[in-house]
Every structure is written in C-alpha cells, then in structure tokens.
C-alpha cells in the first residue's frame, strides 16, 4: 500500500530571519519534547512529531467508499530561520479486522492508517493526487494547521518583508523500480511520485520536504522577479524591488543538504530534468546582474556629477 503526504511551505512571518534559539521556541509544540536542530550547511529545525487521529473516508480515484482509521504523523520545520513548513504523512496498510479497534491499537502505530474493506493501492494513490473531496482525509488541512501554529507564534512580529502565497506539495511513495516524477499542477500545488526500492523509510518524507522547500524558493524568486518588472520600470526601481530576494532568499538554496546517500539519486535526477538548480542559478544570476548593472549606472551618474563640480 502507498505512503502519502502533503507539505505546505511559506515565508516565516517575521521581518528578519530568526535565530536558532527562537526556532526552538517557535517549534516547541509539545511540552517536554525537544526540537531537533541541524546547523550545517544551514540551520534546520524540526518540531517533535505530533499525531492526529483520523477515522474517515479515503480519497479514491473511482469514488469508491473506502474507510481508513489510524493516525497522521505531522511536524513543522524552519529552514534558515526564514522558511516554515508544515508536513504530514500516512502509511496505508490493510486492516486485519473489519471494524475499528481500540485507539491504543492505532496509537502504537504512529503515522499508520489502516484501510478497512476492499481497496486497490493504485486507486487510493490516484485519488490522493487530486484535491480531496469534502469529508475525505485531507492531509493538506492538517499540514496547513501545523504551519499556522508556527506562523502564529507570539515570537514572530508578522512583518514579513514581502507577501507570497504558500505552496503545497502532495506526494505519494510506492515501492518498485526507483523513479521520481514532479508535476506543477497549479500555481500553488505540486505533486510528486517517488518510487523507492524496498520498504518505505522516513527518508522519503525528508526528501519530499526538501523538494517542497526548494520548489517554494524557486516559485517565490520567480514571483519577486515578475514583480520587479525589469525593463518596464526604471533600473533603480527594479533593483530596489529585487532587494528582498538578495536579503532573504538567495542564500537558502542547499538541495539535498540533509539527505542520505539513498535519496541523493532522486535529486540528481530532478536536477537533470526539469533542472531545478539550473533554473535557480539562472534566476540568481539575473538578480545579481540587475543589481550590478544598476550599481554601475549609479556610479557613472555620481562620477559625472563629480566631474561637473570640478
């Protein structure tokens, strides 16, 4: 049976990036459990896992009524003190009984949702790729709420340097011949299919969070470049509009920074096609070139003014 998840990514609602200690406080969602932080090559903090109990219909491509009972595993992460993510996933398994068992049974299997009755793995995976119909398991709603928890922290001043929509990345993992497929579904939604060798490991969820983070960076940089209106407005104005990208985004690109060797080939494949890092690099070059050209223009204006004074 497949594993499925959804990651929501957004700009942390604070005027500047926050320090590691603040990350720890923002993500301390469960009393007594520690926030995990890795510092190299970029500060990345992850909240303790939290469980949400569910007993509801599962989305199905053929609209068949399939019931699932279990728990959804969720967490929040902050990268570079600047980008926040809410992430949830479930592992589907077939239930042994055809009725709901005591909750202790499900609590002992965190992140597992047991499927009651007949259901095809393909049908559930396909159903999950679309927007969930009302009343069905909606991992996006859970991830969105977790992201809200971080964003509404009293430690944040909510004066973010620019406004930008969250993106959502829906992923399905199956076992088989390793492959990855990344699809832009709308301006905010992406879907990813990961086919992995052997049994599912949480590293796949880490990979999807990493993909979501970098896809958000790309999407957001594209939005800022569009807003700069290079060529349509005077150079200094365009350069000024690109300043938030330089201040807050350009240093965050670290693909596969925390992923093990098993996940590296997936990133390499996406870097070959569609070419994430290639697009990022060309956008970064564009931003820097604009700033440079504008600096040169300003220098020559200043020099000209100086000559006239003499």
């Amino acid at each position: 049976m497949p594993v499925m998840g959804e990651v929501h990514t957004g700009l942390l609602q604070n005027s500047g990036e926050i320090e590691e200690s603040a990350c720890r406080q923002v993500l301390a969602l469960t009393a007594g459990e520690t926030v995990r932080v890795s510092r190299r090559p970029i500060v990345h903090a992850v909240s303790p896992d939290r469980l949400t109990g569910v007993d509801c219909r599962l989305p199905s491509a053929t609209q068949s009524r399939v019931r699932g009972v279990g728990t959804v595993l969720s967490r929040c992460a902050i990268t570079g003190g600047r980008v926040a993510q809410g992430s949830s996933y479930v592992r589907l398994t077939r239930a042994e009984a055809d009725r709901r068992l005591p909750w202790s049974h499900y609590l002992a299997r965190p992140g597992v949702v047991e499927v009651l009755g007949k259901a095809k793995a393909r049908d559930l995976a396909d159903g999950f790729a679309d927007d969930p119909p009302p009343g069905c398991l909606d991992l996006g709603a859970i991830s969105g709420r977790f992201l809200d928890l971080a964003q509404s922290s009293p430690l944040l001043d909510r004066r973010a340097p620019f406004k930008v929509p969250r993106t959502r990345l829906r992923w399905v993992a199956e076992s088989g011949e390793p492959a990855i497929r990344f699809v832009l579904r709308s301006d905010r939604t992406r879907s990813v299919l990961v086919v992995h060798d052997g049994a599912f490991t949480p590293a796949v969820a880490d990979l999807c969070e990493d993909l979501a983070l970098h896809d958000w960076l790309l999407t957001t940089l594209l939005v800022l470049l569009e807003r700069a209106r290079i060529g349509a407005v005077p150079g200094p104005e365009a350069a000024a509009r690109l300043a938030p990208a330089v201040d807050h985004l350009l240093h965050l690109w670290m693909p596969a920074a925390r992923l093990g060797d098993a996940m590296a080939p997936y990133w390499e494949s996406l870097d070959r096609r569609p070419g994430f890092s290639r697009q990022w690099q060309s956008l970064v070059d564009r931003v820097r070139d604009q700033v440079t050209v504008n600096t040169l223009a300003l220098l020559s204006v200043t020099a000209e003014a100086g000559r006239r004074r003499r």
Partner: protein
Amino acid sequence: MLVFAISDKGGTGRSVTAMNVVYRHALQGNDACYLDYDLGSPTAGAIFGIGAAARGAREGGLHEYLRGYRAEPLRLDVWAESDREALRARPPGSGRLVLLPGSEGGGELSSVDEEVVRRCAQLFGRLDEEFDLCVVDLSAGRSFTAELVLQATARLAHVPFRWLVFHRWTRQHIIAADGLVTGADGLLDVAARFGHDPDELRDRIRFVRTAVLEPGAAELAGLRDEQRAWLSTCDDELRELARRHGVGRTAMLGRIPLDPVLQWREQLISDEDVLASKIANAETAAAFDDLARKIVDDSAWEGL
C-alpha cells in the same frame, strides 16, 4: 493589512466602493483580495462580473468554510474568471485580484461559536501572509458577522487591521455612522467586550463618504440660484453635524462623488469606462485610486 468595510445603513454603496478600492489596489501593483462577508446577500460575484458566482458560490463559499464543511474557501481569480472584457486580462504590472465569494443561499450567521471564530482567525492569518490588502465586506448594521471579525482580530495580535465606515452625506447617515461606532452595542462597545482596547481601535477607524454631490459639481449647473444657496446651507449644516458626531474631515479617509454609473449599475469602474466609453467620471476613478493608496498609507492614519 485587513480592512473591514461596514456601514450602518444599507444602500450606502459600501460594497461597490470596497470592490473598486480592491480593484484599484491590484492595478497599483499589489496583491489584493476581497472577502464577501455580507453573508445574507453574497452578490460580490456580480460586481466583479463573474456570472458563475453572481449570487454567491454554489460550492465552497465562505459560509461552508466558516461552518466547517470545507478545509478552505473557494477563491476566484478575477483576472481569469470575470466575464467583463475590460477585466479579463491582467494589466501589466498589476497584482493578483482574488474574490472569496459567499455561499449561494447561505444566510446571515445566527450565532458565533468558538469554532467559527477559530476558522475565521485562521483564514485572516493565512490571507495576510499572501495579500497586501484583504478587504472584508460586512453586512450593514450590527451583525454577528461584525462580532465574529472583532473576536477573530482580537486573537491575531500582530496582524494589522483597519475599519472603514461608509455613509452617505445626509443627516440620517451621519448620525447612524457615528452610532455604529460609538453607540450602545456599537463597534467600540462590542470590541471592548472581546478584549480590544477601544482607544486603540478608535484610531483604526475612518469614515468614507459615498455618493457625495460636490457644491461645484457639473450636475448642479441646471439648478436655480435659490436651490444652489439652499444646498450650500445644507452642506454647511451637515459639516457641522458631522463634526459634532466625530465623522468630520479629520476622521474621513475619502469621499466618492456621485456617479451615474454607480447609481444605475454597480460595477467596477475601469480606465476604459473613463477614457474610452466615457460613461464614468474621471473624478470617481481618481477617488477610488486615492482611497486605495490611503488605505495602506500610515500617514493618513495617524492618531486623531
């Protein structure tokens, strides 16, 4: 920035003005959205020229979201969904323009419970993340919807918000606008109950006069001298009345002139309506443009 649009009486032109302000704000290059919280009469779709949501959304409107039937309310991209030719293409340099419609046949809220407040606050928090301006159009008068947004904003400590009270330039409307803010069970009164500081809130409220007939307007050209003199006296009296009720010039953020287009067909006034077909007055478009700038301009909102 969240901006709540309210009026004490119906027929002030609150909704059409609020929508034009959102439209102008988007044209000025900002991402703007409009939330139709006039839940009893969700007709914002008609003014944006979105036929499919002319009487509210058939599925996924704000009602269904607030009542918990939907994880997220429907969003309509006006640049993509409008049937009006002039709105169909997003002009270069403009921002996003999004409508969150009410639900068709939704009806006013009959009570406000904890869950509704939570969902409302969640929506406002999320929209504030991605839009420069979110205008929330509330039903006329004291309503559960107004109470709901006051409760929601009391929870969103760091999310900036402002209120615009719309009124026409008549005795009745001036007195009513003041009553809506300072009267018993008025905005300040209710807000204090939910933990807002009334003095602080007072500074976040400004008035907008609608359908104003300026003394020098072209429409007055055919009047007799006696009529003109009488109008001028009336205007002076209203100004004095407004001052006494705290609705005077200092508390006013904008005034929208009387425009035949708005009287006969509530619609967005595009530049084409002013320049090409010339059905709308340039002053009206300019007034919307001005209001769309002032709404986010802190210097226009310094303490009274």
